[in-house]
């Protein structure tokens, strides 16, 4: 079968070798569940060129995790977080300064050259960047939460459908992360419906320790594969035990 690796050997075994090429994979979990780490381990594997979109980390943070675990570092990081900071947050900071301290002629004049750049739609940017990659590709979107916070959910869904279709037709693989329990249930359900494979990272407190699990929530057309895999996180990454 035409499968591609998830990066976690025991998870691949459970899935019969990996996920089908063309799959869109969703990883959900609460804060601290390790979804971002999961995404990096996913990025460390496979034959395809990797593009890693991040909205939360600096490039060097991603790279240092990859190096620390001996994973591939030839990945292309597209930092939406940095772009967002430069385009939007820095401007917001400046606006609050002007609102607080007042505005001078020089401030008004200066903007003429500066405001040439229109405010960017990062959702459009994401879809466009993915459309430019030569398939088959391995894409990570960490995380959907950024887009759901900043854009209408219908717009986000539309973009995700586009990305999913592109992934499917080009026999590539896309993984996206999403926080559990913070978005409207209708939105969460729609995203879950769109995903071909869903992993949930869960944990329970037993005595003094957390027991951690990869919950295989959904594998499209393979309902028999859903299940709960106990796992641990160590120097080699996520391992099932």
């Amino acid at each position, binding site marked *: 079968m035409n499968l591609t690796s998830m990066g976690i050997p025991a998870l691949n075994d459970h899935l019969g070798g990996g996920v089908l090429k063309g799959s869109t994979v969703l990883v959900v979990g609460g804060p601290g569940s390790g979804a971002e780490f999961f995404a990096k381990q996913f990025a460390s594997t496979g034959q395809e060129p990797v593009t890693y979109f991040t909205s939360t980390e600096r490039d060097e943070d991603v790279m240092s995790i990859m190096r620390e675990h001996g994973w591939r570092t030839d990945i292309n990081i597209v930092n939406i977080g940095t772009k967002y900071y430069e385009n939007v947050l820095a*401007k917001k900071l400046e*606006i609050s300064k002007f609102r607080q301290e007042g505005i001078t002629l020089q401030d008004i004049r200066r903007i003429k050259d500066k405001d040439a750049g229109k405010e960017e739609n990062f959702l459009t940017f994401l879809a466009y960047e993915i459309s430019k990659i030569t398939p088959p590709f391995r894409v990570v979107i960490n995380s959907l939460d950024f887009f759901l916070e900043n854009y209408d959910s219908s717009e986000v869904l539309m973009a995700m459908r586009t990305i999913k279709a592109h992934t499917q037709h080009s026999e590539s693989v896309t993984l996206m992360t999403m926080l559990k329990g913070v978005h409207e249930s209708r939105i969460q359900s729609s995203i879950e419906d769109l995903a071909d494979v869903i992993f949930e990272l869960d944990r329970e407190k037993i005595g003094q320790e957390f027991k951690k699990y990869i919950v295989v929530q959904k594998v499209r057309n393979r309902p028999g594969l859903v299940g709960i895999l106990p796992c641990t996180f160590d120097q080699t990454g996520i391992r099932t035990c």
Partner: protein
Amino acid sequence: MMEPRTGDRVRCATGIDGLDTILYGGIPTDNTVILTGSCGTGKTSLALEFLIHGALNNENSLFISVTENSEKLLANIIPYRFFDKDLLKSGKLVFVDLPAMYDRLGMTKAELSMEEIDLLVASISSLVRELNTKRLVIDSITSVCYKLKTPEKIRDFVLKLSKALSDLRCTSILVSEVAPHSNAYSLFGVEEAIADGIMLMSNLERRGDLLRTLQVIKMRGTMHSRAKYVLDLTPVGVLLVPLLKGGSAGT
């Protein structure tokens, strides 16, 4: 005839001969005047001339452009014979685009909140203070009002703005657009009630000719003629002559 009251208020001479005659010497200083009219009646030209004369007379003058790019506007005034480019260099005559201020202050929404109105008034005031502006034109106030939407907000804005400008000893012309054949002096009907003065510019068709006319409807602090004058835009500036009633074929 009553003796005109002319001596009690200091005047801001517009520099436009006919208009200063109508106003017995000029606009009383610190007044906020609405200059209203439909398109093509010469509002912007008259307002610009008011500023250029001020700047030539060593009064700092500020033009806040809302609808048109100020660079484009500048290209239109250069032909004036009395215009001197050095006025721009020396900062006697300053052009500012209000959209740039909106952008700086993050006023990107279609409708401004009450808090943002205060902020806008404060920002314009601080600019007037910084530049020590004595003459101000906002072209047009109607475009600002489109961002305010409700009569309450417009009233609030115009009141606060004219109070602030008056406190800063600045004589101001707020350009207002009305539809042709409208009976009101402003599109929203609110601005006119608050202003210290109203000057109305219109088109008048007479004997197949489209004349521009000017009429001072109201001006606090002075006597003034309420007669309609014919206005001519020439390279030496605005020329005003009384509209002769005799021989008129009507409209």
